[in-house]
Structure formats: structure tokens, C-alpha cells
């Protein structure tokens, strides 16, 4: 069985411990570099993402696999890449979060998982995130996109606040801001001067790729 086939099997089975073990052993035996291993994992996540899009698998399968992969990357591969001095290939960095006054997380986490499975690096700030924190994080990690989720009519106004915060700091043109969440819409995104709006995780990937000029 090739490394890619083994990785695929472990990711689909949510076998985090064995996946980490496989990565450690592969790196120790120098059968692949950390960046090469990351690329293999990326392909596996893309495959899983396509299965989800085609409705062959469902949300728990996608999210469970994404979590296993994320933990493995965070704990084994990212440190190894840093230590080796290799550059980490990523299609782009995206800061996401649910805005202030809103505790909803699932839709935003799904978008994060799906973007991640499509090769983007995600910084998920969680929920009830104040405007300043979005901007601080984007600056810290040198992101390209800030994604804002709002599921309450009453928290939508905080999406506007993030855009105002960027303007106040003279950073508006540095980042693309995208919106999502049930009460939001394309019209709302236009009204507050966001760069785009996506209705679901699949649309989010298309939007992000378009904004960053990445081939779909």
C-alpha cells in the first residue's frame, strides 16, 4: 500500500493516532519530506471534499476527517516543516470566526473544514469574536481573507464593524472580507462593502478561489 493509500484509509477511519505514527515514521525514515507529506494529506482531503460535494459522504465524515488531519498537521507536520526550513505550500490563509454577540459555530466550522480540505490554511477564532480580534489575527498570520459568520439578525451589524475596524486602521484594502450565515445575503454584503458572500461551504470555496485568483 502506498503512503497516500495508507493516509487515505486512516483519515477516513478517523484514526488520528495511527496517522500521526505513520507521519512520524515516514519522516524519520526520510521516505518523504514534511512538505511532501503535507501535499499527500492535502490530496486526500481534496478527495474527501469531492465525495462530500457529490453527496457520497456526509457532514460527520467530512468534519471528523478534517479534525484528524488538522491535529496531525498542527502536532507533527507544521513543527517538522518549520524545523526543516521548507516552505509550507498553501493556497491562502483565511481568518474565520463568528462575530460578537453570536455563539453559533457549526456553519462557520463547516466552511473552515471545507476550505481546509481544499488546501487553504484556516485560523478559526471561534465565536463572539470582537472586530479588533479579527484584524489582529489577520495581521499576525499575514492572512489574505477574513471570513465573518453571523446567524442572528441582531449580530449582523458586527460584520459591518469589522469592515469599519479595517478602515479605521487603514487596512481595508489589505484583506478581502467575506460573509456568511442565514440572515445574511449578497445584498447585505454589498450594503456594508464586503468583498463577497457565500451561501454554503461549497460556494465559499468557489468564492475564495475567485478572490485569490486560484484555479478552481
Amino acid at each position, binding site marked *: 500500500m502506498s503512503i497516500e493509500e495508507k493516509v487515505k484509509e486512516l483519515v477516513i477511519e478517523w484514526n488520528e493516532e495511527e496517522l500521526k505514527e505513520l507521519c512520524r515514521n515516514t519522516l524519520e525514515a526520510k521516505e518523504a519530506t514534511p512538505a511532501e507529506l503535507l501535499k499527500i494529506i492535502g490530496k486526500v482531503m481534496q478527495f474527501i471534499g469531492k465525495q462530500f460535494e457529490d453527496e457520497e459522504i*456526509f*457532514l*460527520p465524515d467530512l468534519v471528523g476527517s478534517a479534525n484528524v488531519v488538522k491535529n496531525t498537521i498542527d502536532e507533527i507536520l507544521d513543527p517538522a516543516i518549520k524545523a526543516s526550513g521548507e516552505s509550507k505550500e498553501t493556497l491562502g490563509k483565511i481568518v474565520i470566526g463568528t462575530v460578537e454577540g453570536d*455563539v453559533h459555530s*457549526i456553519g462557520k466550522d*463547516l466552511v473552515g473544514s471545507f476550505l481546509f480540505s481544499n488546501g487553504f490554511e484556516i485560523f478559526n477564532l471561534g465565536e463572539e469574536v470582537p472586530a479588533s480580534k479579527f484584524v489582529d489575527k489577520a495581521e499576525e498570520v499575514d492572512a489574505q481573507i477574513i471570513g465573518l459568520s453571523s446567524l442572528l*439578525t441582531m449580530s449582523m451589524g458586527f460584520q459591518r464593524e469589522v469592515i469599519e475596524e479595517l478602515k479605521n486602521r487603514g487596512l481595508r484594502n489589505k484583506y478581502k472580507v467575506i460573509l456568511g450565515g442565514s440572515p445574511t445575503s449578497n445584498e447585505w454584503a454589498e450594503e456594508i462593502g464586503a468583498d463577497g458572500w457565500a451561501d*454554503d461551504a461549497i460556494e465559499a470555496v468557489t468564492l475564495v478561489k475567485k478572490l485569490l485568483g486560484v484555479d478552481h
Partner: protein
Amino acid sequence: MKLKRIEFLSKDEVQAIHSSTIEILSRVGIKVDSPSARNTFKDYGAEVNDHELFIKIPESLIKEKLSTVPESFKLHGPDGTFNFEVNTTSTQFATIGTPVKIYDPSKKGGVRKTVLDDTIKQIRVVDSLKNINCSHIDVWPNDVNYLSLHAHCIYQWVHNTRKPYGLGCFGRLASQDMMNMASIIVGSEKELIDNPRFVGFMNPTSPLHLPQLMTNGLEIFAKYKQPTIIAPEALAGTTAPVTLAGLLTQINAEIIGGIVLSQLFNSGAPVFFGTVSTITDMKSGNAALGSIETGIITAAIAQLARFYNIPSRGPGGITDSKVLDVQCGFERLQTLLVATQAGVNYITCAGTYEETLVEALELLVIDDELVDIVKRLIEGINVNKETLALDVIKNVATNPKKGVNYLSEVHTRKFMRKELYIPKLIDRNRRSTWRKKGSKDIINRARDKVEQILQSFKPLNVDMEIEKELLDYIKKVDKRILDDYKKAEGISTGTVSLPGTDITVKDN
């Protein structure tokens, strides 16, 4: 015989869920954000962890506080001439959403944002309906500043209906405003407390979390004895276990946690036991409110509520459809049917579609008729000497005259209206007749009825003194900024006094 109530849980299964709930509340606990609410629990013997914000409620306290919950209560309209009782045996029907859009076939996509005019129309339509007894601030007026929206809606309530009203328990300040304005309308705080006007909606966040805004609002609603629905909206597979038994255990714990708190705030405060919990659609991640599982969960909640002898609440007439199509039709009927057959005491969500995000006044009048249809189902078959109709059969069948039938029999006239549901909106005409009447579908016929209701509506008289006091109050509310609310809820620095009370809320 009338239709037997449907049940999905045996006595042992109800007990198993109850025991698991006690295990959760007493050993795992429930997260309570508000320090003052945690202190309230602590004062009554709960174990409180102020670091992790979890409180554990001992079984003895749960048992004691569930015993003080009223089995029944009445809700009244502004002037009290219209009122109805909620108890553990009958079923009432109401609206809720909260719709932020409304059906408008003249617009692209067939929907547009709701505005205050829609809120007013919905209140007026509900006022005229036979079966829908209560509306709440559920058609969201997007053109009103959300910081004073509640005040404007209460003003519209008193001008447009004789029926009760309600709102989410969204914090101390907004809830106190509602009580103050209602006290102006009904004459005094005492009258409001003795004869409640509002249904409150207190929403735990699943899993196992009572948020600060909600417990703050609950405190006011409990103090004023306005019946409050403790209503988690858990989704199997995302915010609750994917197994329905696990979901029921969790929401049972959330509901009972909220109910215990309401009794600690004010012993004997009326509450409803219930929820709009459902499953997660595992393709989209959305709540699948129109699913068959919603009915199963709702029916089980009715059983659990009966176990605790508290009036239950659940959804009915809901759908995930984005259009007024066959899916919209069968999902609303399936959820309404199951909820009513299960004996839910307060069934909400009439008039909505797209997971209650969109309102259609046409659906509201249709739902009123669906309730009649479901009520007819529940009535079943009446079997006695008269209804067996032996003599009538003999007379008609053996009558020597040709063409004799039952139409002009006294028996038919006597029993027709009890035995046969005579619909208003449903069409059963021959095609030729239907064509002559304009070939209308039920949505168009419903629209005609809505227009008729709105055209014949007579605005209600409001005393000039009350009118002035309400408008002055609204002016005060209109001047507030977001920070005033944050301070009142204890989520910002500074202090603010709650209007109409001598309470000053300090920063936590």
C-alpha cells in the same frame, strides 16, 4: 372513539430519560454564564464552579422546584376580554418564527424583507382567526431600529388585537420595558401579574448552557409571572447526540435546568415545557424542521411534560421548503398532525416556511384551517344508537319513491356539522366550477381571505392617556444606545438602572 394519543416512549423509557437527566444535572451540571444566576442556584444548595461556570443541581432541589410549577395558567389580551387557558390536557395553537422575510410573489425570488407593516398585518390576521390564539413578536420589522423594536411592537399589539402577545426573554432591560409598557396598557403591574399578557421564550444554548441574556430576561418574566417557554433548539448530530434518546435526555436537562431557575426566581412562576428541537440535515448542516423526526421529538416532549405535569410546547405546521409547494404542504401537515396527536399543549410556528425564517399570511390562514382538519381527525368516530342510524337506513333504503337519499333526512341535518368538517379554503368543486371561479389554487384563495380580513379590520380604541404614556415611553427607549443594554445585562462596564424599577444593575 376519539383518536388515541400517539406515544413513542414506554413508561420505562420515560423513566430512563428522566434518570439520565438527573444524572446530567446533578453530576455533569449545566453552564450558567450569569454570576448572579449562579449565586441564586448556590443559595438553594446547588454546587457551583465559578471558574468553569458549571452548576450541579441536586436531585432533591430539582424535585422540590418542579413541584411548584403551575399545571395551568391563563393568557389574556390587552383589555382582557379575550383569554384562553393553557393546561396539561388541551391544545392551543400559536405563531412564532422568527420570520425575517415574507412571501411576496411580486419580488424576485418570491420573498422580501419583513417591515413593520407586515408585523401589524400579521397581528391583525391572527386576531381574526378561529384557532390561532396568540402571536408573538415573530414577524421581525427590519425597518425598525432593533434596539427599540420591542417597544414599537408592543405599541402595535395594543392597537391591533384583542389576543395575547410575547417575545424572547432577551435581557433584563428589554423584558422590563415590556412589563412597564404592558402595565401602562392594562392599568397596573398587579393586573399584569394577576392576569398575564405575554408568553416569554427563554432559549438555552445546546449543549447544556443557560446564556446570560436569557437568564436575565427569565428573571423579569418570572418576577411578573408571565408564562415562559423554556425552549432549547437542539439539533441531533450537531448540538445534541445524534440518537433521539440522547437528544431528549440533553434537552430535558436544559429545560428542567431553566424551569428550576424560574422557580428559584419566583416560586409558582408559570412555564411551558418545550422546545423546537429537531435533527441536523447531514448534507447541508441545516436544521431539518420539516422532518418526520421533528414530530417524533415533539411527541416525546409531550410525554415528558406529562410526566412532570407541566404544559408542553412544540412546533407544528413547519417546513424546510423555500416555496409554497407540495413539500411545504406535506411537511406542515405531518408536523402539525404528530404534535396534535401527541397532545402537545401549545403548538407554535403557524404561518411560516423555510425553517420559520419566512412568513406567509396566506399560510397563516391555511394553517388555521389545517388545525380544524386535525381537530376533526382527533374527534374520530362517534358510535352510539343514534349514529348507528339503523332506523334511518331502513327508512331510506326501503322507501318506495325513486331517487330517495339521505340529503333531506332530519338525521343528516342534525349530525352533518358534527360529523363532517366543512372546509373554507379547500377546493372540492368539479373542474368546470373551479374554472368558473377563476381556476385559483389554495394560495390564491388564501390571499383573498387575507385581503378580506385586512380590509374589514377595525382599529382598536386606545385610551388617550395610555396612548400618550406609551409614546413617551417609546421616545425614551428610542434614545438608548447598545452600550445601555450591555451595561444593564452586566456585559459591559458601568451601571444602569432598570426603568420603572428601583433596581440598579452593576457591572459584574
